[in-house]
């Protein structure tokens, strides 16, 4: 019967160590030999911690003590205890007490989970990669969205976005019975500046213009690059035309409206035309048309701003 048991132990796919109460190794199966490269003949009769010094840890010894005294069964997962076994492969360790009438033994079972752990690690890696790919894709989507609605040079809204927003604010104004202001703005003498100093300076000026407009307008106002050197400001929530006039005066009366170059200063000034819903029209095209005309008049009269 004893031999049969040994045969059984040696064909099991787990490492099995049986120790006596004094921790002297009593049985050491073939799989254990394979795991540790230690032959049963070397292990048997010796102290467990001498044979496997990696087990000589405080908490392990404490647990062994508890198991022998109180009959606990203990389970050490490979993931939490990589330090317990001095091997490349990973093992879950289960330890229990075996008792018969006269003798007490402790059974240690070593279960190989290397394959599972590798698989899980691989899976986690894939998930992380997928997550990163997804993140990149979302970023690209945002870029594309930006390209469609925002002016690449200045970063402010472009013509396409303008129509969408203007329509929305117009509908709001209609619903609430409030006023909506449209300010059509262009940069004075832009063409000649561009021709004189070149496109690079021209671009710088456009950028500076957009910034000036952004700073001069209120939080709720929307600055749009309508095209070339033309800008539109949408002014929702105005009480009357004086609100627009205030913004207009802020735009042209700033002392910082200068673009500096190596040896020259270019002073920026704007011409502005204002139209108001509902007085000047009840749709966007009409409002833009009126504001544009007003701006033209302002230019002709050498005024800063004109309105009806």
């Amino acid at each position, binding site marked *: 019967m004893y031999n049969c048991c040994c045969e059984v132990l040696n064909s099991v796919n787990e490492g099995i160590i049986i120790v006596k109460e004094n921790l002297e190794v009593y049985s050491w199966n073939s799989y254990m030999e394979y795991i540790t490269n230690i032959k049963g003949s070397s292990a048997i009769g010796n102290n467990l911690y001498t044979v496997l010094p990696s087990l000589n840890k*405080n*908490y392990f010894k404490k647990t062994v003590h508890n198991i022998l005294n109180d*009959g*606990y*069964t203990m*389970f050490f*997962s*490979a993931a939490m205890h990589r330090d317990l076994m001095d091997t490349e492969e990973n093992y879950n360790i289960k330890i229990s007490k075996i008792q018969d009438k006269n003798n007490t033994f402790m059974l240690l079972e070593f279960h190989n989970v290397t394959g599972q752990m590798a698989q899980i690690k691989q*899976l*986690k890696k894939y998930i992380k990669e997928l997550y990163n790919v997804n993140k990149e894709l979302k970023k690209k989507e945002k870029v594309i969205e930006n390209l469609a609605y925002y002016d690449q040079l200045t970063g402010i809204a472009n013509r396409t976005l303008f129509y969408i927003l203007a329509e929305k604010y117009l509908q709001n104004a209609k619903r609430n019975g409030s006023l909506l202001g449209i300010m059509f703005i262009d940069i004075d003498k832009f063409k000649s500046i561009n021709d004189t100093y070149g496109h690079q300076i021209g671009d710088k000026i456009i950028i500076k213009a957009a910034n000036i407009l952004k700073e001069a307008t209120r939080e709720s106002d929307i600055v749009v690059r309508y095209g070339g050197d033309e800008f539109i400001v949408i002014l929702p929530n105005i009480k009357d035309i004086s609100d627009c006039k205030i913004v207009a005066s802020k735009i042209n009366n700033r002392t910082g409206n200068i673009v500096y170059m190596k040896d020259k200063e270019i002073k920026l000034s704007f011409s502005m035309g204002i139209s108001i819903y509902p007085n000047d029209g009840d749709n966007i095209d009409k409002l833009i048309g009126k504001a544009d005309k007003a701006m033209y008049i302002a230019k002709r009269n050498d005024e800063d701003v004109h309105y009806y």
Partner: protein
Amino acid sequence: MNKSSIRYDILKEVFNISAGKAANLLSEITGKKIILKIPDVTILDRTKSNIELTDYLPIKFSGALMVSTISFKENLAGKANLIFPAEKMKTFIQLCLNEEVYDEDNLSLDFTDIDFDVIREIGNIILNCILGETSNLLDIKLQYSLPEVKVYNQITFTKAIYEKEYQHILVLFITFIIDNTEIEGTIIVDLALQSLNELLRKIDLIEADTYV
């Protein structure tokens, strides 16, 4: 259970001492600061009224539950269930494994085999220490095996832990803090009437000894 009674006080203290041992062991294994508190204990009698167990589950519970169960038969008969909300367990496991906690890793609520192994170990340590120390302090011999770990939702859980033979329930609220992450759980121990009486008898013995 009368919260101002001596029995309650002794029971709570006994469990807290045993929780302290579990915290100590877990702290050595993980290398982290661990605090295990049992702030409240209560005894329910299923024969007296229909008890909604979900009233006793962790307060912030709203989803899946991770449950480790140990059965014991010698001297006391019953089943002990350690219950934690599954979503918090993911973070926990990463802390125990000394892994960095990334949001990306928590993309799915599925637990891997490794996760289950880790819970099996932690659940075992906590339940072992609590049941073991308690049985030591009360001088009752207990025999039990390794816990089974499963994930349940509210409905499947109530079905799973209902034991016809064990009508008395001991409920322990447990707070587990690892580093600075806190998780609240419950330990539900189903006990046979005889076992509950045995438990209370031992407590009364201690009371008699101490409160002379």
